[in-house]
């Protein structure tokens, strides 16, 4: 692979957050539908755009990595295709939640979509095992890692840093949604007078 392996420091955290983002949407959607927690829908909606952006970064950096390594920008194998499906799921979720009548909150339809879309997460994870793939098999498993220590430690630091950034982004977007809900509530009260 040569020096291109350095792309791992942006590609892997982006993939982790693209998949982790949707897992967060699914968990928040379950909490919204079952326990009706008022922040669940807001948090699910706040995750969507950062999740989609990281899924896109994962696809683009993977494609850039594929060109010198595989000799092609794109192959329609299980891992790449299922990741592309995840990106389209994000776009669908963003469209659905934006169509919601309640500004800031998420509709029940979007929540159901968030739960159903989570089926794709284990498919992405197992795709390199289930199907013949250009993409390498999992390098880090519960049993250990095949990555050299010189790359493994910086990779974990990179994943931790990107995850903190993702958390900050979601919190900022939640604050935005809550402020928009306050504006809408205030406008309704003013219109009633």
């Amino acid at each position, binding site marked *: 692979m040569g020096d291109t392996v350095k792309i791992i420091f942006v590609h892997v955290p982006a993939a982790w957050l693209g998949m982790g983002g949707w897992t967060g949407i699914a968990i928040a959607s379950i909490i919204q539908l079952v326990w009706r927690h008022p922040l669940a829908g807001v948090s699910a909606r706040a995750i969507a755009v950062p999740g989609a952006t990281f899924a896109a970064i994962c696809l683009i950096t993977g494609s850039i990595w594929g060109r010198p390594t595989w000799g092609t920008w794109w192959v329609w194998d299980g891992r790449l295709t299922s990741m592309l499906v995840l990106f389209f799921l994000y776009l669908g979720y963003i469209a659905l939640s934006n169509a919601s009548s309640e500004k800031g909150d998420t509709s029940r339809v979007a929540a159901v979509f968030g739960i159903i879309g989570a089926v794709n997460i284990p498919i992405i994870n197992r795709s390199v095992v289930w199907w013949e793939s250009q993409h390498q098999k999992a390098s880090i498993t519960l049993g250990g890692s095949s990555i050299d220590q010189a790359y493994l430690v910086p990779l974990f630091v990179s994943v931790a840093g990107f995850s903190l950034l993702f958390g900050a982004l979601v919190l*900022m977007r939640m604050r935005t949604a809550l402020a928009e809900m306050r504006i809408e509530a205030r406008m309704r009260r003013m219109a009633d007078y």
Partner: protein
Amino acid sequence: MPHAPFIIASFAVTGVGISWLLISSYLAMRRAEASADELRQQP
């Protein structure tokens, strides 16, 4: 095939994507909170 342009391109795409996300999220938050505060102060 030289690898450096591919590595630089990957890091640039990531940098641009995250910068756009951070700046747009921060500005949207500041705008929404300022509007909410402004509206609250109205009688």
